[in-house]
């Protein structure tokens, strides 16, 4: 039987010998080199922060050191000995455990099982010992102060509770290395504080921790060391004590931050969209705002605040229970995305792979999908028109591809995003909603998307930009709505728009990091 987490003490090891060392790790996916010869070292009893922009390769290295991906090249050493992990279980046996960025959980199984699947305690005849499993699950949940019944089916839990289960799962293995890939993203303020305590406890037990976060306040609060990745390459590492925030940002981005947003002349026109009293039974309530031509409206909030849900309701995916939408002053009923498109509202979704691009279809067919009535003749396709339309918009967005009949699945994330935007521009919309438009896309494409948003606004399009990145929100928006728990917490403009006010309203707290 495995001892539970507190029973072993790693502290005696010397702190300057890495317990886990990766060097020269390279990993490619079709069309992307996610990691290019990177190295990473973790030390017992210390927290190492891994920093990098979206798509820098942080999650990829996590998957590599937990045995989910096998590197194309490079070496992994545990306590000095080279190892190879063929599966996640190999890594767990070597004492490496992780809270992954994606939820790695099973809705149909109970909390206890989600914690223990893959390494459940065994009783007689190698059968799973359910009683023991429940008991241990209860212990671990108690350690992280999660008030959850081990027998609850996971599907009955909310996102925050699920995240606690994921944390409990990571702690169920007696690990010398604990990896946390954006563990606080879905947690509330109180839960985050509890997580910090847990990290401190793990540290004091001599475990090595890899902590991935986009939030600098967290990093400065708990990390001892840092490693920075940029575009799949290692750009620096050292002690937190030796750097300040500006240094880290410079390493992450490779240039000064305030230069990346385009200058814009703000000249909003007449009102094009007005939302009044939008509500949904479980997702959001009392949503109201207006939008003018040429304006960029930022929508900020913590992950899970319900921003995407509001936008998808506007786009006709879900149906609100109350409220009305006016477009150019007239009330419109939107029951489906087709209705929304017909009324000039388009939506660039957050989940590109699932909701944005139709992977498996060529670029040009993706672009013309909502505009087929333009390019076709009495319902019959006209390929020449399609290619012409697709070319017009993809070239305008500077799409990097080999040909228009290439499968969008072979494009990089940023270029897929461009295809989705091109698809909507081709419909000549009035309002374009971009949900996390630069999430997971590289810096070059990011700047292009920003520039393009500014250009669209200048041409008189109304833009709604949902974003979790404060610099982006501040750099791009004319006005910002902050959402919290399905409600609008604030609408900010002009001088009121500061990082502090955004965070305060989003988290519902009085004060921010000094």
């Amino acid at each position, binding site marked *: 039987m495995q001892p539970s987490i507190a029973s072993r003490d790693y502290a005696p090891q010397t702190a300057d010998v890495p317990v886990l060392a990766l060097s020269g790790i390279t990993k490619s996916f079709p*069309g992307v080199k996610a990691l290019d010869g990177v190295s990473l070292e973790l030390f017992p009893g210390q927290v190492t922060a891994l920093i990098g922009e979206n798509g820098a390769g942080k999650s990829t290295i996590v998957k590599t050191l937990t045995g989910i991906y096998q590197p194309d090249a490079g070496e992994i050493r545990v306590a000095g000995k080279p190892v190879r992990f063929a599966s996640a279980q190999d890594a767990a046996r070597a004492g490496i455990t992780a809270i992954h960025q994606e939820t790695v959980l099973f809705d149909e199984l109970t909390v206890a099982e989600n914690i223990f699947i893959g390494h459940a305690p065994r009783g007689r005849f190698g059968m799973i010992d359910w009683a023991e499993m429940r008991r241990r699950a209860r212990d671990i949940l108690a350690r992280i102060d999660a008030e959850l019944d081990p027998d609850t089916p996971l599907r009955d839990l909310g996102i925050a509770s699920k995240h606690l289960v994921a944390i409990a799962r990571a702690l169920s293995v007696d690990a010398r290395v604990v990896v946390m890939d954006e563990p606080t993203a879905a947690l509330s303020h109180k839960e985050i504080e509890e997580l910090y305590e847990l990290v401190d406890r793990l540290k004091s037990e001599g475990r090595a921790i890899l902590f991935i976060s986009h939030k600098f306040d967290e990093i400065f609060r708990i990390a001892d060391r840092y490693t920075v990745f940029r575009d799949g390459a290692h750009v620096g590492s050292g002690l937190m004590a030796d750097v300040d925030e500006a240094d880290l940002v410079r390493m992450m981005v490779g240039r000064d931050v305030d230069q990346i947003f385009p200058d814009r002349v703000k000249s909003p026109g007449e009102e094009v969209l007005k939302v009044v009293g939008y509500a949904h039974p479980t997702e959001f309530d009392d949503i109201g705002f207006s939008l003018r031509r040429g304006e960029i409206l930022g929508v900020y909030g913590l992950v899970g605040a319900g921003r995407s849900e509001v936008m998808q309701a506007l*786009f006709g*995916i879900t149906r609100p229970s109350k409220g009305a939408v006016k477009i150019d002053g007239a009330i419109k009923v939107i029951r*489906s*995305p*087709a209705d*929304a*498109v*017909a009324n000039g509202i388009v*939506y660039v*979704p957050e989940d590109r792979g*699932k*909701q*944005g*691009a*139709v*992977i*498996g*279809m060529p670029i*040009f*067919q993706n672009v013309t*999908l*909502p505009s*087929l*009535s333009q390019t*076709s003749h009495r*319902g*019959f*396709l006209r390929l020449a028109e399609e*290619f012409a339309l697709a*070319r017009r918009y*993809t*070239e305008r967005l*500077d*799409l*990097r*591809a*080999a*040909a*228009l*009949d*290439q499968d969008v699945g*072979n*494009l*990089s994330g940023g*270029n897929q995003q461009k295809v989705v935007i091109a*698809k909507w521009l081709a*419909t000549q919309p009035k309002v374009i909603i971009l949900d996390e438009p630069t999430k997971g896309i590289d810096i070059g494409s990011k700047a292009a998307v920003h520039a393009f948003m500014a250009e669209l606004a200048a041409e008189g399009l109304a833009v709604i930009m949902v974003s979790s990145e404060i610099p982006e929100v501040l750099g791009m928006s004319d006005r910002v709505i902050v959402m919290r728990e399905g409600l609008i917490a604030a609408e900010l403009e002009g001088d009121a728009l500061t990082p502090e006010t955004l965070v305060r309203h989003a988290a519902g707290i009085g004060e921010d990091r000094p």
Partner: protein
Amino acid sequence: MSDMTARHLPDRLQSPAARLLQSWELLLLGLAIAIFIANSLASPYFLNAWNLSDATFNFTEKAMIAFAMALLIIAGEIDLSVAAIIALVSTAMGAAAAAGAGTPLLVLIGLGTGLACGAFNGLLVTRLGLPSIVVTIGTMSLFRGVSFIILGDGAYRSYPPEFAYFGQGYVGWVISFEFVLFGLCALAYYVLLHRTNFGRSVFAIGNNATAAQFSGIRVGRVKFMLFLLTGLMSGVAAICLTSRLGSTRPSIASGWELEVVTMVVLGGVSILGGSGSIPGVVIAAFVMGLVTFGLGLLNVPGIVMSIFIGLMLISVIAVPRLWRMWRG
């Protein structure tokens, strides 16, 4: 490839002709020709216009359903109730004929019943959001069951003489009406799938229904139409088959659903949805027809032929993958 910095994007990487040369359809056509040659060497009776014409009856009716089924499968759904629809349609027509309906009315009743069955499947799948494979396993029993309730151990056989034309008539020389209808359907479905907006949305839905919906396609409506089409084609096939048999029993066309699905999959349509073509299905229909007819001429029992079909079904997917594994 994606790192290319060309500002001007070419339309195509490969010319359509080059693409055709690597296509599944061409491979399948090669197979069909090989079987044709093998058949003519194996049996002296094969190369005879009348015999070949007779042989087409082995697949024309199934193929007509297969065209609609191909669209449905490309869109990520499936209909296992097609053979049961044939039974119900045939029963409805038989009852009408027994009541004295004329041929035009019979055809209308047949098509109408087919459409109604398709609509029933379509509503269950698109309105209630049920998985189509389960729904149609259910309606497969339901439709044929209704036919059993109506007919019991009886049979309808009083069809008007003109009704025989659909399954037994010839348009000219050895060209049967069914074969002509098969050709017209092939053409119509080719145009519908590969040349219209509707066909494009079928592919989009099959590749990613969520993204298609997020692109403004009315996914539910398209799927519903596809169930309607499948019902309609089952109705057409039922008219031809009933006319060819000249009678109706509730056990008519039993087991056809799996043969139709086999034909579609053999034609290169991905069972997971998103890809496939009508020419592929047409060639697959010929392949299946030629294999069964060729082996039939050698008096090989049908079940042994089905071993060939089963092997073909698996190997057409397995062989390319094995080849790739072996090379890389």
